[in-house]
């Protein structure tokens, strides 16, 4: 055989590796390629960050659905760990799973790519509105300092506790009890925990003292002030904190960039998205991975629609 004087793959441009890895489709295969050598690991890691989880809620057969924001492909991973559990939401690629078979309920974080599981304390808390539970973590749960927050949203019910937290290895969940606090969403942003209420008041929360640190900002978004719109969620995309507001009347969304770091003010209306359509994901989602979330439309919260009928908030 005519031999050329080079060894093909040692000099392979990483773009070609990207092309081949994308064609593997299955995130497990891509992860496997990450063990081959160091340069492959970086390509595999980069590609895996394009996958986001789609909600499954209750999984009878053990499926977990991933969406590749680059290729727009959908890939299903079937895992025995997911059999007959509630899969609620994800943070840093880890899924919050709850198994109700035996009291107390078994709560875990599961990484469906590596199949690692981290047991969280059993809960004696009865989570309400199970389909609305959401997990956020301060870092990857592999970090022993990681703080796990489970938020249970209760629309329009003030003075109700809605945030539970623990660290992996703790014996029980703790509850943040604050009077007159109607958090609609919480998020870790640059290492701090923030909460927002329906009217756009943004709070910085001191988890360990279980209190508000201070009110960071009150929104100056006219629609929120007129109470024709309410805040839906906080989202982090590429290092920026975004506030998603929904209209009471027209079923539309607007996304506001919270530029409080520099200005301590809200920059209104940076982007507008329509519900029931997928908005274009940012070209480089890795930073926002743990905050990309998928929620059923508000009209059918307990009955998740197929992916194309839900909105992706990125």
């Amino acid at each position, binding site marked *: *055989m*005519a*031999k*050329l004087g080079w*060894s*093909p*793959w*040692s000099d*392979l*441009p990483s773009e*070609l590796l990207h*092309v*081949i*890895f994308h*064609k*593997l*489709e*299955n995130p*497990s*295969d891509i*992860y*496997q*390629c*990450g*063990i*081959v*050598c*160091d340069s*492959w*690991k970086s390509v595999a890691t980069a590609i895996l960050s394009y996958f986001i989880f789609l909600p499954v809620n209750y999984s009878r057969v053990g499926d977990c659905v991933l969406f590749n924001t680059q290729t727009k492909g959908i890939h299903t991973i079937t895992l025995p760990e997911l059999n007959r559990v509630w899969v609620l939401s994800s943070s840093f690629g880890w899924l919050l799973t709850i198994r109700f078979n035996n009291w107390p309920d078994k709560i875990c974080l599961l990484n469906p790519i*590596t*199949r*690692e599981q981290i047991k969280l304390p059993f809960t004696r808390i009865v989570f309400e509105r199970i389909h609305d539970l959401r997990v956020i973590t301060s870092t990857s749960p592999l970090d022993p300092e990681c703080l796990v927050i489970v938020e249970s949203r209760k629309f329009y019910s003030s003075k109700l506790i809605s945030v539970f937290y623990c660290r992996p290895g703790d014996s029980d969940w703790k509850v943040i009890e604050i009077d007159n606090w109607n958090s609609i969403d919480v998020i870790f942003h640059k290492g701090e925990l923030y909460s927002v209420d329906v009217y756009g008041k943004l709070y910085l929360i001191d988890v360990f003292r279980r209190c508000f640190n201070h009110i960071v900002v009150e929104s100056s978004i006219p629609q929120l002030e007129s109470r024709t719109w309410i805040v839906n969620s906080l989202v982090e995309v590429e290092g920026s904190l975004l506030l998603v507001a929904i209209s009471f009347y027209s079923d539309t969304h607007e996304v506001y960039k919270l530029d409080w770091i520099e200005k301590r003010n809200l920059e209104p209306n940076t982007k507008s998205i329509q519900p029931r359509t997928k908005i274009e994901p940012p070209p480089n989602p890795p930073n926002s991975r743990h905050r990309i979330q998928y929620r059923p439309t508000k009209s059918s919260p307990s009955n998740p629609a197929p992916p194309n009928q839900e909105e992706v908030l990125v």
Partner: protein
Amino acid sequence: MASSSSSSSTQVKKITLKAADGKHFEVEEPVAMEMETVKSFFVGNEDAMKDMVVPLLNVSSEHMPAILDFYRNHSEFRKRTPPPPAEEVKAFNEAFLENKSDEQLMEMIMAANFLNTKELLNFLTEAAANRIKNKSVEYVRAFFGIENDFTPEEEARIRAENEWAFDGLDED
């Protein structure tokens, strides 16, 4: 292309390509122009076409016949009306890959990348992905001829994070 009045008769113009190991290949112009690298060689230089030999530094003569065959067939598929049945294209593609070793496939991917032809590169990278799907790390390393540059400790750690991946692999 060159609209010279000089009668080159009905015969298709040929372009000479030189593989990395020095072998010459006479190729019909439309086929040669499937390769962006060859095409760009002639941009603004149409007159030179007659005698110019295009050097293809990264393509072994071993792979030239197969690559040219791919271009000929696929450009014919594209032109045909009605389009050829999917089975026919699939049969050609499967025959193309038959008896190609992993190493040959890798070399052809490098060639297709150098020649800058999307269709061929897309086809070959897909084939490479199919060959490493659901395979062990050792197999993939051997397939790509890649040296493991992790220290034993690093690899043990990565594998420990990754135990699941060693279940349910295909037989190599």
